[in-house]
């Protein structure tokens, strides 16, 4: 039983289950699936300052979403900590070879320990990957009005041209980092 629940899921099982979050939230209370709004709610709750963008009642519009996010942390704990997959991810050999050439040596777990560690925060590489990367995720998601959940899933599923533009942007940015920046950063 434990072995069964530790297994990773194939795309054709995981994809539809992920998509079901959209109708689930709509049916529960007419809520739109979008995770990055929570960063805005956090700003509105803790440090709104004199900024107009953060002057709103975050409890009315966002408390449900923060509760949803708390659940997502719990889901990560159950699926990744309690019943985590003990095996390394079955990556394509090409990706493994390319990442090894960049200097990644540890392929266990979900994140490369070579990059994501407290020690690596003392290096330029660690600062760029963790701090600059996080900053761009927050800044970019709000500028674009949504992230992977709000645009790539909710927005494209609702046939929004705006979301298609945003997703094209996501890929331009991702390809620049992967193929131009990473070879320079390692």
């Amino acid at each position, binding site marked *: 039983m434990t072995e069964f629940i530790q297994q*990773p*899921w194939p*795309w054709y099982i*995981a*994809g*539809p289950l992920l*998509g*079901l979050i*959209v*109708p689930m939230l709509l049916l529960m209370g007419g809520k739109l699936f979008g995770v*990055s709004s929570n960063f*805005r709610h*956090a*700003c509105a709750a803790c440090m709104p*300052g004199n900024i107009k963008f*953060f002057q709103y009642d975050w409890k009315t519009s966002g408390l*449900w979403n923060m509760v*949803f*996010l*708390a*659940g*997502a*942390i*719990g*889901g*990560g704990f*159950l*699926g*990744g*900590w309690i019943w*985590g997959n003990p095996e390394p991810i079955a990556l394509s050999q090409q*990706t493994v070879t390319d*990442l090894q050439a960049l200097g990644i040596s540890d392929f266990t777990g979900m*994140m490369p320990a070579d*990059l994501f*560690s407290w020690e690596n925060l003392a290096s330029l590489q660690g600062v*760029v990957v*963790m*701090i*600059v990367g*996080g*900053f*761009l995720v927050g800044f*970019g*998601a*709000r*500028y*674009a*009005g949504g992230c*992977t959940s709000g645009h790539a899933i*909710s927005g494209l*599923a*609702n046939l929004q041209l705006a979301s298609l533009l*945003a*997703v094209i*942007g*996501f890929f331009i940015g*991702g390809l*620049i*980092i992967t193929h131009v920046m990473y070879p320079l950063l390692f």
Partner: protein
Amino acid sequence: MKNNLKYLLAGLFFGFVLVKSEVVSWFRIQEMFRFDSFHMYGIIGMAILTAMISIQLIKKFSVKDLEGAPITIPPKDSRQVTRYLAGGILFGLGWALTGACPGPLFTLAGAGYGIMLVPIASAILGTWVYGALRPKLPH
């Protein structure tokens, strides 16, 4: 708060699926941006398709939510081309660096990767700076 309990359950389901699908993995995101595997494209594609069919059914049958209110989805303003492309590119840069979008950042923290608190704090700061610069940015 009692009203919000159902969202906690939905979030638990979301986080569990994110881990089991390996969508939270920096390795899987790299594989996607290198076009080396169908895995991520299959997941995102199937998720969009499932959500699309669900939304069409909800609209067609004018389904109401659990609280009895009609379900409406406000359209996004597609005239603001600059914000979607520029914001999208900046987000994409961050997505490939951290290997995680906002949901996975939190799910990874829950899965024991405490180091993800660093990009989470940084993302909140990024959001705050966007809020401060918003009147000056082209949209």
